[in-house]
């Protein structure tokens, strides 16, 4: 390698290092880190990452992190709840919920373009958790999603959550559509 080539290589590396450390990149990294913190603290994995049985009992299946109710897991009809104060039942994965609203399946939050949030804009995401409607304008977001709590975050925090969700591995997993009560009862 000639001195000139080495010089160019060094200059290129320096440029890359500088770019990586640029204020914009550092800001993006901080945003993703903040989003990871909020998603962890907010318990998003509780329902959006399926549970699997491990040596110590049920544990989140991080190979399917935040990918929602597993496509291959077809749920039988939810058990009928006897009269009384019991209200809801939940699948063993914590990703399928049955109650007075019907049956809801937790969403795929990964950036997969076909089955996740890959085609969503940051504004779609903010509109959804602020309004409780799909993409801010469609069907209602169902229990147990605590969208009222998430929607109370600041714009900056919601942008951080979205940035983090865009940074995680995309997982192709088509979550079933929710079932309305009439269908769920059949």
């Amino acid at each position, binding site marked *: 390698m000639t001195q000139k080539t080495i010089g160019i290589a060094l200059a290129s590396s320096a440029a890359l290092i500088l770019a990586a450390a640029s204020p914009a990149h550092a800001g993006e990294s901080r945003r993703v880190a903040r989003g990871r913190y909020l998603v962890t603290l907010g*318990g998003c994995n509780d329902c959006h990452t399926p549970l699997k049985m491990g040596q110590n009992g049920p*544990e989140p299946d991080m190979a399917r992190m935040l990918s929602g109710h597993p496509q291959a897991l077809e749920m039988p009809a939810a058990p009928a709840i006897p009269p009384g104060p019991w209200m*809801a039942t*939940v699948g063993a994965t914590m990703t399928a919920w049955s109650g007075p609203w019907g049956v809801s399946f937790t969403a795929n939050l990964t950036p997969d373009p076909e089955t996740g949030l890959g085609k969503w804009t940051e*504004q779609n995401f903010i509109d959804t958790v602020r309004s409780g409607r799909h993409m801010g*304008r469609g069907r209602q977001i169902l*229990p147990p999603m605590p969208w*009222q709590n998430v929607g109370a975050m600041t714009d900056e925090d919601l942008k951080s959550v979205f940035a983090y969700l865009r940074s995680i591995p995309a997982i192709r997993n088509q979550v*079933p*559509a929710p079932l309305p009560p009439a269908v769920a009862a059949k």
Partner: protein
Amino acid sequence: MRGPGSALRAGGAALGALALLCAAGAPGSASAAPAAAPGRLSATGLFADVATHAIARGVLPYSPQYPLWTDGAAKRRWIRLPPGTAIDGSDPDTWRFPVGTRLWKEFSIGGRPVETRFMERGADGRWIYATYLWAPDGREATLAPERGRRAFAESRPGVPYDVPGTADCRACHQGHPSEVLGFTALQLSPDRDPLAPHAAPPEPGSIDLAGLAARRLLRGFPAQRIAHPPRIEAPSPRARAALGYLHGNCASCHNARGPLSDLGFSLEERLAEAGTSAAVLRTAVRRPSVFRPGGAPAVRLVPGDPAASLLLLRMGSRSPYLQMPPLGTHVVDEEAIALLSAFVREDLADPHAIATLYP
């Protein structure tokens, strides 16, 4: 290992969310209306005398030619511009309304007013949304809870009629750059579509596009559009009515300029662009939908085949998780289904029509 705390926390979230859902329809829910919305409809300036429903001077009735389907409720609409002001129509598809503009829409079932929706442009330029619930004696309407009132009335025996919350108002109105949806050049065109479903004939004294121009209430709007009023260009009267219905019922969200523009699905007829109907159909005919019912691919409109067209499937459903529009209706608009089905089956399958509509 997950401890019981996770399940309890999730269960608590479920109950909390459910409680909030239930509270949306609970009588006596706390009212948290926008600060500027008065507590009574009579204080909004609509009436000269609320008891007799006499309308105040300066409040102008109007009637859009492609109205939104609301389960057959009869509707009356009014607008009031602050004295000495005018609408800025320099963008013919996105009129800008002066601060202080007010609009009202009254919904009646069986001849009795049920609710009146209200919008006002505040001093900061943002729109205020509120809904007023009529007392059974029809003498006054009071501010609805912010979350609206589910099953406040019945549109027909056994079918609930929901009063929207302010978030519902925003879900539709803020899907378009102009939050005023029914007061537009196309909707107010004197060249009205005789086949438009559910259009109410303008009541005496109603304002239309020509009237706005004559009274200098609209500035900057292209003069040639006054002389030649807007009209959806289509190869048949049925196609015109079908495209108008989609514009009036769907384009508040499904347009190319709002938050859902990334869906690539626009049903908005725009004046600023020639050949808009073709542009509309390019986003719909034989185009895959982002929504995949049951996880299966689906096509928005299939020429000649209404049953395979997802748009008609969703229009014809009232499953809360499938239906379109997603709110404000519990009853399928059968007249519109018949119109759109014939449009898909015949107009879109006609080589001449398709060549005109969708070159």
